[in-house]
C-alpha cells in the first residue's frame, strides 16, 4: 500500500529512480510541457472559462437584480418543486440502491446478471426516451391509464410522474457506489453475527451500514446532483406547468426561450453553486474513503 502510494507521487518516483531518471525527465520536458499545455488548455477552454463567464453574466446586472430574479414567485416555486422531487427521489434511490447492491453482491439467484445489466441501463438511455416511455405507460391513454383513473391516481403532469422520471435517470448511482465496498469487505463479519443469532435487520444496522457509510454518502451526493438537475425526462412527463410542475431546470429553459435571460442566468448560477458544493463534498468523501481502506 505504502509502496503504491509512493509510485503515485512524482516526488516518490524521483527518489526511487535517482539522478539518471531526473536527467531524462529534463530532456523529455519539451514533450511533457507540450502535452501539459494542450491538456490544461483544453480543460480550461472547454469547462473553466465558460463556467466563469456564466457567473459573470449572472452577476452583471448587479446583486440587487440577481436576488430580485431569484425572489420571483415562479422561481421560488420552481426551487420548492425541485427540492421536493429531488429529496423524495434520492430517498427512493438510496433504499433501492442499497438493497440491490446487497442482493447482487451477497446472494445468487437466477437472473442476477440480468438485474445487474438492467440497473445500468438508465445511464445509456436518452432522458427524452425515459419521459416518453413513462408517458406511454402512465398517461390517461396509456397502459395503466384506466386503472389510475378509476382509483383517482394522477401521475403524468404531476409530482409522482416527475419522481418516477427522476428515479429512473439516477437509478444506478447509489448501487454502483456501494457495490465495490461490499465486494471488498466480504461476508465474514455478517456470517459471524448471524451464527451468534443476530437478526438480519440488526446485522444490517450494526455491521453492513457502518462499513458502507462513506461509499453510500458518495453515492447519495452523486444521486442528489443528478436528481436536482434532471431536465429532459422531467420536461416530457411534468407538462412544465409554471407555478405547479415547473422545476428550476425547466424554468431556466423557459427563461431563455422567453428572452428573460437575466433570470435564467441567475437560476443557472445557483445550480452551478449547488453543483460545486456537491463536487467538493464528493472529493472530501472520496479522500476519507481512501484513508479509511
Amino acid at each position, binding site marked *: 500500500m505504502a509502496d503504491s502510494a509512493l509510485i503515485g507521487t*512524482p516526488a516518490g518516483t524521483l527518489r526511487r529512480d535517482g539522478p539518471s531518471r531526473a536527467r531524462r525527465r529534463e530532456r523529455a520536458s519539451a514533450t511533457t510541457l507540450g502535452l501539459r499545455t494542450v491538456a*490544461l488548455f*483544453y480543460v480550461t477552454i472547454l*469547462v473553466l472559462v465558460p463556467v466563469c463567464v456564466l457567473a459573470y453574466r449572472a452577476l452583471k446586472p448587479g446583486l440587487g437584480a440577481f436576488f430580485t430574479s431569484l425572489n420571483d414567485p415562479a422561481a421560488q416555486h420552481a426551487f420548492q418543486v425541485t427540492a421536493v422531487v429531488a429529496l423524495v427521489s434520492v430517498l427512493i434511490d438510496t433504499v433501492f440502491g442499497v438493497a440491490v447492491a446487497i442482493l447482487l453482491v451477497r446472494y*445468487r439467484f437466477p437472473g442476477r446478471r440480468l438485474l445487474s445489466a*438492467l440497473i445500468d441501463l438508465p445511464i445509456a438511455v436518452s432522458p427524452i*426516451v425515459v419521459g416518453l416511455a413513462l408517458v406511454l405507460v402512465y398517461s390517461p391513454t396509456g397502459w395503466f391509464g384506466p386503472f389510475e383513473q378509476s382509483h383517482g391516481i394522477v401521475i403524468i403532469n404531476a409530482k409522482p410522474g416527475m419522481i418516477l422520471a427522476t428515479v429512473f435517470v439516477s*437509478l444506478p448511482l447509489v448501487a454502483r457506489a456501494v457495490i465495490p465496498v461490499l465486494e471488498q469487505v466480504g461476508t465474514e463479519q455478517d456470517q459471524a453475527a448471524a451464527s451468534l443469532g443476530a437478526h438480519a435487520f440488526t446485522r444490517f444496522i450494526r455491521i453492513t451500514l457502518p462499513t458502507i457509510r462513506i461509499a453510500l454518502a458518495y453515492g447519495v451526493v452523486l444521486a442528489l446532483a443528478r436528481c436536482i438537475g434532471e431536465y429532459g425526462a422531467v420536461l416530457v412527463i411534468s407538462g412544465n406547468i409554471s407555478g405547479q410542475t415547473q422545476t428550476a431546470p425547466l424554468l*431556466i429553459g423557459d427563461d431563455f426561450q422567453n428572452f428573460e435571460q437575466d433570470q435564467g442566468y441567475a437560476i443557472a448560477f445557483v445550480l452551478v453553486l449547488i453543483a460545486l458544493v456537491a463536487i467538493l463534498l464528493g472529493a472530501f468523501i472520496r479522500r476519507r474513503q481512501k484513508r479509511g481502506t
Partner: protein
Amino acid sequence: MTATLVEEVPAHDAGTSRTPRRRRARTGLPLRGASGTSLGVIVIWMSLLVLLPLAAVVGKAFGSGWHDFWSSITSSTTADALKLTVGLAVAVSLVNAVMGTLVAWVLVRDRPRGAGIFELVIDIPFALPTIVAGVVTLAIYGSKGIGPNLFGTRLGIFVALLFVTLPFTVRTVQPVLVDLDRDAEQAAASLGARPQTVFRRIVFPQILPAVVSGATLSFARALGEFGSLVLIASNIPHKTLIASALIYGKLQETTASAEQQAAAIATVLLVASAVVLVVLDLIQRRIARRG
C-alpha cells in the same frame, strides 16, 4: 454465459467451510426469507419503472406493423436527424478518446502544479444540470455570447457535447494509469526505448480497454443528449435537429401517428443503448479475465 453459470454452482456446493479463494463475486448465499422478499419488491419496482415503460416504447413503435416503423425512421427528416446524431456521437467519442486520455495522462503522470484544481474541474460537467451546461455553452457561443456565434450550428452542438462528455474517458483511464505497474516501462526505458515507444508498446495496450469503455460511454451519452443542446441547437430540420429533440417535437404534436413516430425513433436509440451496454460488458469481462 452458460459456461460461467455451470462453473459457479459446484464452487458453492463444495461447501462454505472451504474459503472460496477464486472469485468472491462467484459465490453467494441462496435467497431465503427477507432477502427473497426484497428481491421480489425490487423486481416489481424495476418492472414498473424500467421494463414495462421500455416495452411500451417498442410496442408502440411496432404497434401498427413493421412497415409503419420502417417508414417512420426513414422519412427524410428523421433519417437526417438520426445520421446527424450518430455522426456527432462518433466524432465526440473519438475526440474524447484522444483528449480524455491526454488529460488523464497529464493528471496522473505529469501532475503539474494546480492538478488538484483540475481534478475538481473535470467533475463539473457531471455535476452540472444538463440545461445549465446548455446555458454555459450559450454564454460563450450564443448569439450574444462572448465567443464566436455558434447558435444553430452543428459546431455549437459538437462543443456542448464535448463539454458534457469530458469526464467519461478521463475518469475511466485515470484509475488504470494510477494502478499501472511501472517496472516494465522503466525496464524498457533503461534498455534505450524512446518515451514514444514505451507509451505505444507498453502503456497504450494496457489502457486501451479503459479508453474504449470511456469512449463508448461518451458515445451513449452523446446519442441521447438533450438538455445541454436545446438552447444552442435551435432544431433546424436537416441541419441541427438531433434525434432527442425530434422525439420531443413529435410528442408536442399529440397525434397518434406522431406518438408512434416518436416511439419508433426512441426504439432506434434504445437498440443503440443496448449495443453500447453489451460492448461495455464485453470489455469489462475481458479486463476481469486478464486481471
